């Protein structure tokens, strides 16, 4: 379910890091909690994002949720498909539903993130609450 090559945050984002470039999305657990996604508000290429700080919003029918960046860096690409197909966050959150690509400012930040196993244990705890 949760790709082992990704790293995860407690706010339910994932990042796939390739050298100094990270692709960021929300997890399957997050999309299930949100329900039907209808709108995604994202930064623009060139914008700066900061680890643990909000960089956008996901609107579902039911509610709006902030998205927090797993890392600090500069946005180099935004998933433009989400503008007209926000439901990709529900149907393929770990793939076609990716949000942004960033150039990492400090690769050491990813050491603080959870592995897939750690994340799965974490959401089991969340579900128990």
């Amino acid at each position: 379910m949760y790709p082992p090559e990704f790293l995860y945050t407690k706010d339910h984002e994932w990042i796939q890091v390739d050298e100094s470039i990270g692709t960021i999305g929300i997890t399957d657990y997050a999309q299930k909690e949100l329900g039907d996604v209808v709108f995604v508000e994202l930064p623009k290429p060139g914008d700066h994002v900061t680890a643990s700080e909000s960089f956008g919003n996901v609107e579902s029918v039911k509610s709006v949720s902030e998205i927090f960046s797993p890392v600090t860096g500069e946005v180099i690409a935004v998933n433009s498909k989400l503008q007209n197909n926000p439901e990709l966050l529900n149907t393929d959150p770990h793939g076609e539903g990716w949000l942004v690509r960033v150039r990492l400012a400090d690769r050491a930040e990813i050491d603080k993130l959870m592995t897939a196993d750690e994340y799965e244990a974490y959401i089991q705890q969340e579900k128990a609450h």
Partner: protein
Amino acid sequence: MIAPPGVALKRTALNAVHRAAGARMVDFCGWDMPVEYSGITREHLAVRTAAGIFDVSHMGEITVRGPQALALLQYVTSNDVSRLQDYQAQYSALMLPNGAAIDDCVVHRFSSEHYLLCVNAANTDQDFAWIVQNNSFGADVHNVSALYAQLALQGPRAVEILEKVSEPDPADLQYYRFRPARCCGVEGILARTGYTGEDGFEFYFAPDQSARVWNTLLEAGRAEGLIPAGLGARNTLRLEAGFALYGHELDERTTLLEANLGWIAKPAKGNFLGRDVLLLQREQGVPKRLIGFVMTDRAIARDGYPVWVEGKGVGKVTSGSPAPFLRKNIGLAYVPPSCAEVGREIQIEIRGKLAPARIVALPFYKRRNWDKAT
């Protein structure tokens, strides 16, 4: 609303059925309730185009009986109960002296000395206490909520589904009428009422028969596209239909006139709680009025967001959401009457930015053939 920690959530008799069906459960006013099964959008569209079934067993039921039943109800509710015939229902409000509602409700008349009130789950206990407190008339008042499960079958195909499993034939039951009925082999009370803006029915019966009625109805409606629907779709459906939700459009500080519910206030019937305030407001006007608005860009308004007109904050959104059937982002809000006219451009403050919206006539959605079915 979240229950205080340590307080066990209440459950309807269908709790295990919902969980087995994969429903997402939430704490709704202290009740562990299904918010969605297959997705709010899908459930919402099913109710608009086919049918959906809702477990609304958390709703409260209060009986008022005896020779003084009518007198008590005339005093504590806003609508004119004397206009009801046997087996007729009426949308109304339980009133406070300040012209606001302590709750909204549906009053069902079995006979001139026997009424059943259906009230909101979160308010049931205080509604009951309030009616008892105002019962100087000597009517018999009982909170019978635990005796009733309630399922709502809603949608344009509800009647043909129900016809397969219910007798007498539900097709000739008129809008806002009810009667004893046998549905899925279970005796109960069948009412042609609902909270979705569609044709539909609400069935009240003994909780221990819940799974039988639920499963039989779902099976009977499979070919028609009947699916279970949760409180998420119930909320978006009632919002499209422009219905007030207590705790959002209605509260203890908002009068019926402010909430556009003047049509359920009948001062001509005689004295009732809050009548003086409503009469005064009818004469002098209201300080705020409920309006409906549509967002004119892609932004989505949510409950509590500030409303701006010509550079000034003038009010608050009480309900805001994407409307799955209308495919627009809509909302309800209170604004001063001076800026409440249909067509006016307003702005909604969303995370520090102002997004454009336009005031529109309510309801947002009205089903076709409404008059024929009623």
